[in-house]
């Protein structure tokens, strides 16, 4: 417990730093928010000063920062310049789409990457090992925005199997319950809705899963190799246990410790990947939302969005840290 509290306290300065970065961002970009909002029409100096005062932008920076922190503590992440909606509520609306995509991708990456990495380690040097590691290096080197375009060209354009973009065919409509379309479409009971959702989901999931899959497979293999060389493995073998039991129970359980950390660290990669994947597939999630906000110079949305994302990444890393402490008692006691 003390270990967890310590970890959280350690994050406080970083958290403050993140708010400083987000706050600095909007002041560092060329032009001030009022000029940006006015756009190409321009604005009279008098009106400009009036709006600056209205937004509190005429105050000294430190005062602005304090009121910014005050707002954040009250759950106010600013109002979008473009849609005039609160940034937080826009984020909440779009986040389930990204979460659903990211979950599918990570499930794909773990369920293929972990067994493949383990098998590669057990059959070290075999053709399977070599081709799995070759493919993993290929995946790791992949420009995923191109990979996505290639898959769309092949499966949507040429073969016509999957839709080009979006989350579901426009002919279906149901009220969001969980925000996860896969679940909502089943709950709605509409015929064909679920398969439409699944067909929309498959290519983006593959694209987003590519790099985490490569990393997880490689990491699992090397963790497994390390474990296989340990003394207790020899003991297990000497006791005459079946090789399935040796590998599946003794080796796999110990090899999973570093692998779980690796999986946790993919959150950051998933968000970076989501920015590209959502742009290619017009997936209505936070990645596409942020890119569009940057293009429209909707910097309040960008400021709020990056702050929420950074906090999210930090929270997940904290969770992984704690989980790591729980499954590996040597850490928490040290």
């Amino acid at each position, binding site marked *: 417990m003390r270990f967890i509290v310590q970890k959280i306290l350690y994050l406080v*300065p*970083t958290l403050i*730093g*993140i708010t*400083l*970065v987000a706050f600095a*961002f909007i002041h*560092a*970009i*060329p032009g001030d928010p009022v000029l940006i909002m006015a756009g190409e029409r321009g604005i009279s100096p008098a009106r400009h000063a009036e709006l600056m005062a209205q937004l509190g932008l005429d105050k000294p920076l430190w005062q602005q920062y304090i009121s910014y922190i005050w707002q954040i503590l009250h759950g106010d992440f600013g109002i979008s310049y473009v849609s005039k909606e609160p940034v937080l509520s826009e984020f909440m609306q779009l986040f389930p789409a990204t979460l659903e995509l990211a979950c599918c991708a990570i499930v794909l990456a773990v369920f293929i990457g972990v067994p493949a990495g383990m098998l590669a380690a057990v059959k*070290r*040097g075999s053709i399977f090992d070599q081709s799995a590691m*070759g493919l993993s*290096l*290929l995946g*790791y*080197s*992949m*420009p995923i*925005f*191109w*990979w996505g*375009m*290639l898959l*769309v*060209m092949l499966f*949507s*354009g040429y073969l016509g199997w999957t839709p*080009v973009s979006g989350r579901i065919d426009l002919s279906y409509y149901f009220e969001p319950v969980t925000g996860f379309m896969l679940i909502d479409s089943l709950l709605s009971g509409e015929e064909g809705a679920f398969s439409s959702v699944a067909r929309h989901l498959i290519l983006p999931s593959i694209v987003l899963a590519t790099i985490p899959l490569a990393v997880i497979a490689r990491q699992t293999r090397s963790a497994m190799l390390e474990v296989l060389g340990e003394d207790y493995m020899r003991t297990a073998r000497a006791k005459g246990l079946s090789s399935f039991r040796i590998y599946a129970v003794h080796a796999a359980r110990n090899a999973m410790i570093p692998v779980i950390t690796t999986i946790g660290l993919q959150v*950051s*990669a998933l*968000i*970076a990947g989501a*920015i*590209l994947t959502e*742009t*290619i597939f017009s997936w209505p999630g936070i990645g596409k939302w*942020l*890119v569009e906000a*940057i*293009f429209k110079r909707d910097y309040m949305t*960008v400021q709020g969005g*990056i702050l929420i*994302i*950074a906090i999210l*990444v*930090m929270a997940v890393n904290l969770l992984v840290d704690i989980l790591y402490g729980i499954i590996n008692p040597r850490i928490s006691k040290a």
Partner: protein
Amino acid sequence: MTDISQQHISSAGLRAQALREFWYGFSRSNGAVIGLIIFLFFVAVAVLAPLLAPYAYDVRFDNAVLQPPVWQSGGSWAFPLGTDAIGRDMLSRLIFGAQYSLFIGVVVAGLVFVFGVAIGVVSGFFGGKTDMAIMRLMDILLAFPALLLALLLVNIVGRGLSGAIMATIIAFLPYFVRLSRAAVQAEKSKDYVTAARLAGAGRFRLMFKTILPNCMASLIVQATLAFSDAILSVSALGFLGMGATAPTPEWGTMLADARDFVTTDKWWIVTLPGLAILLLVLAVNLAGDGLRDAFDPKLKRS
């Protein structure tokens, strides 16, 4: 006098010996050698681009818009890999694109290496408050996914190729700082450092002449990773419209233009620039793996 010159010869001999051993370790891995060959091929293409490319990268042939590659019906030897939407020769653009990608890789990896190592070594060597302040700053940068951070920074320093490069450098910095700091911390308390300190070596000498060379192996491996990551990151920014601009034949920017052709049969516009990125990045990663194995025999696969 003779003593000194003999010493010189033997140290040169030692270096040659080390180099031979290194090459032995490196060349044992087929992948690494293949990676190196592909990489050198790209370097040659980039250097010889003005000689190799049939046309300038921005010249338009209005009567040959969207012409397919030579082996497809409608293709011609005038444009071996076809032309793009405004009639520019794909082959020439791809060839000149190699210059940009290699330049991006070299500049980003080089500058990240220099700044990251300098900051990391200072942080690891001094420890205490300096270290704490630097590492906290790096923690903050690490809280943002690298591509997102680069995307934000590029809007501050200015969109375009140089903006994208600068943004990527800053986004990659924390990884180098952390790695070199950890390496220095591991070396700092070893006997040879204490010996050098007792012999009267100053801080600067201890940091950069005594300790740093012993941390080089892992840093060089990391630099090859930064090289390939930089190409991916800057081309991703180009794809998102924040990197290199219009007539520049940067591969990522070419792919941004190719988005309109994803559902058409103009496959060469979509396929070729990405294939070039993949090949170059793969080559660098293969060579990087080989470097790691050659530097660190303990990690060797078999």
